[in-house]
């Protein structure tokens, strides 16, 4: 009899812990895109982002037995990835990124009329994001790009909602100042 493909996350976790390693593939399929979206927004490089996601999944596999709520394993994996991205940015930060030195990231590919002025705007936005602290960037990305609620972000970042709101506020203020500075 064909096994149901609709196994719950908790069932998948149980199967993996019982020795069915290939069942972990279901979690990669379910959460790979979400994790990759976040990693790419945080690190801005597709190769690095893919590496981060791979590390997060492998780490999650190795420590799956410590996942407290197997039915929320997606959030648990996301938290692992978020921590890795934050650490990565902490390690690669502490250097000023000149505006002109930022890599030209791939365009979205949907607008053939993407002209130099628009490219310049994108460059400034990315330069401003790069200047935030890793914690500010993470909070801003989750709130304003990923649309997570403050409760959801607070759970990932292990912060109170009040502290998180202050962090997002400071990120916005820093971005405004940077965008003004960049002209």
């Amino acid at each position: 009899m064909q096994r149901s493909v609709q196994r719950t996350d908790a069932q998948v976790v149980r199967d993996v812990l019982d020795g069915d390693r290939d069942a972990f593939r279901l979690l990669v399929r379910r959460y790979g895109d979400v994790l990759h979206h976040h990693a790419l927004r945080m690190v801005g490089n597709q190769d690095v982002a893919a590496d981060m996601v791979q590390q997060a999944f492998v780490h999650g596999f190795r420590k799956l037995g410590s996942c407290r709520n197997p039915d929320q394993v997606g959030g648990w994996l996301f938290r692992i990835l978020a921590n890795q991205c934050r650490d990565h940015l902490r390690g690669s930060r502490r250097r000023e990124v000149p505006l002109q030195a930022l890599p030209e990231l791939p365009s979205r590919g949907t607008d053939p009329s993407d002209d130099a002025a628009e490219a310049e705007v994108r460059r400034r936005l990315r330069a401003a994001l790069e200047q935030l602290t890793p914690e500010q960037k993470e909070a801003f990305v989750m709130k304003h790009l990923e649309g997570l609620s403050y409760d959801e972000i607070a759970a990932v970042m292990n912060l109170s909602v009040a502290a998180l709101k202050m962090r997002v506020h400071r990120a916005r203020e820093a971005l405004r100042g940077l965008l003004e500075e960049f002209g």
Partner: protein
Amino acid sequence: MSDDVRRYLDGDLEIDALPAEARAQARAWDRILEAFRSDDQARSAPHWLEDRVMAEIEALPEPGPVSKAWAWLLRPQPVRLSPALVGLAAALVALLILRPGGEAPPPMGDGPEAAVVYVQFRLDAPGAQSVAVGGDFDAWRASHALEDPDGDGVWTGRVPVGPGLHTYMFLVDGFQWVTDPQASHYSDDGFGNRNALLAVADPET
């Protein structure tokens, strides 16, 4: 930025509830945030990522017989032990006296529920945002947070642990499992890492 605009951006106020001046600021912020969203770099995971993850997982070593035995012995569900195995475990407990951080405070209370020892755990982890200890005694939930009140990077905490032989590790910043460098004995976790071993004697014997 006014408090009203801030509350609007946080989703706590509708734009119609703002005074005219604040509304103009809010719209300016909407344009800035929309510019960021329109530049969103997010893309789906590359198609090869799944296979690459699974290849790395498949390459991890299978738990060895010793690790499997540990996993079986330390499984949180109730298990039936033969008298011989109980005797072996008791002998191991008697032989191994492991005290993380060099201190095992006396047990508290004297009722049947008090058959635990409060063990002092310690980890030097400067730069960590959080440290917790987890092991078979809490089903590896890392539910006991350590504290660093003076910010010197030394995290400590007292955790109730029942008598017996236990494995544990530290969970740093919520995701990184770290082996206790101060433990006297270790066991492989089956994936290339080492769990620290902790033996807790029954305080009533």
